[in-house]
């Protein structure tokens, strides 16, 4: 029963009856709705850097963790989960030292390397303090550019960086290797100066005399290893555990070629972080030298300090990559299997504490299953007492001692078998340190 006027309006087509929208009206409203575009067809994936671990030394590069912006906020001592670090350029190589970090980019710009963290031995170069122009910062809280004395700064590219206990190495493509930091054992490749003061030092040494171009630099705790294109290995630094592999237990201050079992062998990868070193040849053999107190080299010798490279006759298949930690070692074979040996939390539960012979970690712990049989480990990395494995799906698995939250799992307990770290992106590379880690990640879309 409508009022006469309303009914007349409807009949003339001037009024519209209200009611729930009909299907046709809904469909038309849907077709008329605007379409939003959030990503175009050529949208590129973004490269990001995530950091986690102990932050008080400034090694994570986030100043608000150490000195908060507001007075009432408390400093954050540990970052237990991955935290995004804003960088100006795409970071292609990162390295974690003992309380400091180096980030390097592949760019041709003048600023190629940034450093943050501990700088008491000028391992990050000279960072001029703003309060006193003559002194340098002892703790660098933000990624700060490191001024390298390059001849052609707008043409040379930095390929790789590496950090040890108190020294760092920067590898360039055409100007050799730059070393900085503590040199009390000759680890920077220059003559040891008695009573040298390393804090606030401007000295960055350049090393060019190798038999061919250097393609990889590795820092141990107080020694340095250089691998050249021809497959030879050079070493300098402290040798009391035989980690220089030169046949003696003395200090070496000039990079010297290694012989022993690797003489004439084409080495494709070298690795070290503590006092033990591993090298992988192109045929898949593993060679080791250095400290063997934790059974790292016990498969070939009973001595605890091995100062000449020895071949480790493991029957595990062709080895693709090796990584050395403080007390444990890890290798990755061509088939994608991961083997661990040494001492500590090795990744096979709390019962396996030490072994001299490599033990395989089952691939099902890295995400392999009947549903995804193609999942395999692509890279392995080692910190001082942690291990990290990257799969071909871009997932990061960590295990080992959770020193000051360096595993990034969000908990403070040790992890006895591989555990996935939740990172919002595909992890491309990870660098492990003593108590912090840095990862290079690409976003999903």
């Amino acid at each position, binding site marked *: 029963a409508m009022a006469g006027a309303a009914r007349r309006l409807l009949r003339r087509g001037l009024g519209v009856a209200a009611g729930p929208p009909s299907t046709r009206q809904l469909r038309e*409203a*849907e077709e008329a*709705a*605007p*379409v*939003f*575009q*959030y*990503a*175009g*067809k050529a*949208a590129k994936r973004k490269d990001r850097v995530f950091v986690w671990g102990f932050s008080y030394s400034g090694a994570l590069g986030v100043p608000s963790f150490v000195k908060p912006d507001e007075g009432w906020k408390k400093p954050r001592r540990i970052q237990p989960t991955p935290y995004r670090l804003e960088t100006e350029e795409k970071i292609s190589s990162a390295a974690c030292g003992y309380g400091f970090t180096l980030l390097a980019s592949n760019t041709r710009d003048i600023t190629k390397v940034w450093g943050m963290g501990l700088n008491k031995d000028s391992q990050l170069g000279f960072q001029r303090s703003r309060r006193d122009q003559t002194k340098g910062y002892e703790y660098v809280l933000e990624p700060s550019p490191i001024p390298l004395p390059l001849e052609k700064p707008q043409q040379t590219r930095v390929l790789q960086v590496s950090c040890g206990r108190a020294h760092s190495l920067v590898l360039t493509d055409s100007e050799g290797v730059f070393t900085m930091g503590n040199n009390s054992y000759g680890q920077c490749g220059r003559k040891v100066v008695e009573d040298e003061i390393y804090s606030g030092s401007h000295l960055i040494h350049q090393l060019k005399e190798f038999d061919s171009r250097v393609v990889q630099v590795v820092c141990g705790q107080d020694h340095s290893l250089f691998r050249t294109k021809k497959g030879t290995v050079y070493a300098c630094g402290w040798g009391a555990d035989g980690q220089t592999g030169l046949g003696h237990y003395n200090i070496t201050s000039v990079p010297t070629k290694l012989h022993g079992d690797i003489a004439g062998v084409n080495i494709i990868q070298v690795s070290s972080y503590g006092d033990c070193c591993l090298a992988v040849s192109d045929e898949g053999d593993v060679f080791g030298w250095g400290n063997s107190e934790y059974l790292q080299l016990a498969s070939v010798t009973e001595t605890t300090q091995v100062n000449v490279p020895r071949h480790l006759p493991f029957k595990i298949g062709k080895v693709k990559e090796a990584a050395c930690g403080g007390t444990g070692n890890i290798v990755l074979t061509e088939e994608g299997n991961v083997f661990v040996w040494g001492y500590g939390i090795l990744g*096979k*539960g*709390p*019962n396996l504490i030490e072994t001299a012979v490599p033990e395989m970690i*089952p691939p*099902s*712990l890295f*995400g392999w*299953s009947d*549903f*995804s049989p193609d999942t395999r480990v692509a890279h392995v990395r080692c910190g001082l007492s942690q291990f990290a494995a990257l799969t071909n*799906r*871009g*997932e990061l698995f960590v295990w080992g001692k959770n020193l000051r939250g360096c595993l990034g799992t969000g908990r403070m*307990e*040790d*992890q*006895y*078998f591989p*555990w*996935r770290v*939740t990172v919002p992106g*595909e992890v491309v590379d990870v660098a492990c340190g003593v108590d912090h880690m840095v990862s290079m990640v690409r976003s*999903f*879309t």
Partner: protein
Amino acid sequence: MAAAELAGVFAVYKPAGVAWGRVREAVETRLLRELNAAPGRAPRQQVRFLPASAPGGGGAVGLVAARLPVLADHPLVRGPRFKKLKIGAGHRLDVKASGVFVLGIGHGNKLLTDRYNCHLTRVYTVGGLFGKATDDFSETGNLVEKTTFDHITREKLERILAVIQGTNQKALLMYSNIDMKTQEAYELAVKGLIRPMGKSPPIITAVRCLQFALPEFQLEIHCLHETQQYLRKMVHEIGLELKSSAVCTQVRRIRDGVFTVDDALPRTQWNLQSIQEAIQSCQLKVETELEKTLGHGENSLLHQLGEGWRHS
């Protein structure tokens, strides 16, 4: 009689657009109709002495013995023999979803509780459509936004699915309440047997892309403790991750424990005969499954996970 013998667990295919309660009632009505249609006991006979006129002279009424059925046993007096059947439902399906729906009859309802305590995974086929987002994540909801989707490739979708699987893998280990520092936890993790045996939020154990043809795609999802609305929300979130939007067009359960789509009875077979055959054929499968998970033997999962779970 037949109702007491009818006991066990069987699966029915629930069509979309029907509430699960109606399906259960429809099966119950059909079974009751067939059970009541079967001829029952013959009515009791009684001997009645009926008056009948004597063949001799009038007035004298004699009694004739006659065998008559007792009126109290007449079907119109007694009513139908079976008025209700105890039919219980397993994991429920909401109105818009379809697929395998497990029902239990009589003593089989006890097996339903045991199946719930097994915490096994269920498999769904979920269909999605890129390009729009609605408020209840399905195609019939109110439109929220329309977006472009031509930048989506199968590779990007599979990357997102891999991440979903990885985070849910972690959730599986976390909610299973096992101490990560023990050797047993390591061994169970290697075998892939760690599972939450108590209450937990929905966890997805495996996802796979079956079909991909823009704007439509279809996923196969294995999950635990889920609801169908959670799966629709997951499709919506996949759309958001890919910088577009998606709605869920179809949720179909293809497996619930040991019952697959092949074991589920379609509507034409919701009768007594087929249900009895279905119960018979699935009985062995269900018992082995329960024994393997909840049994008292050495190999059962419950025994391996520890005594604490028996009471959860």
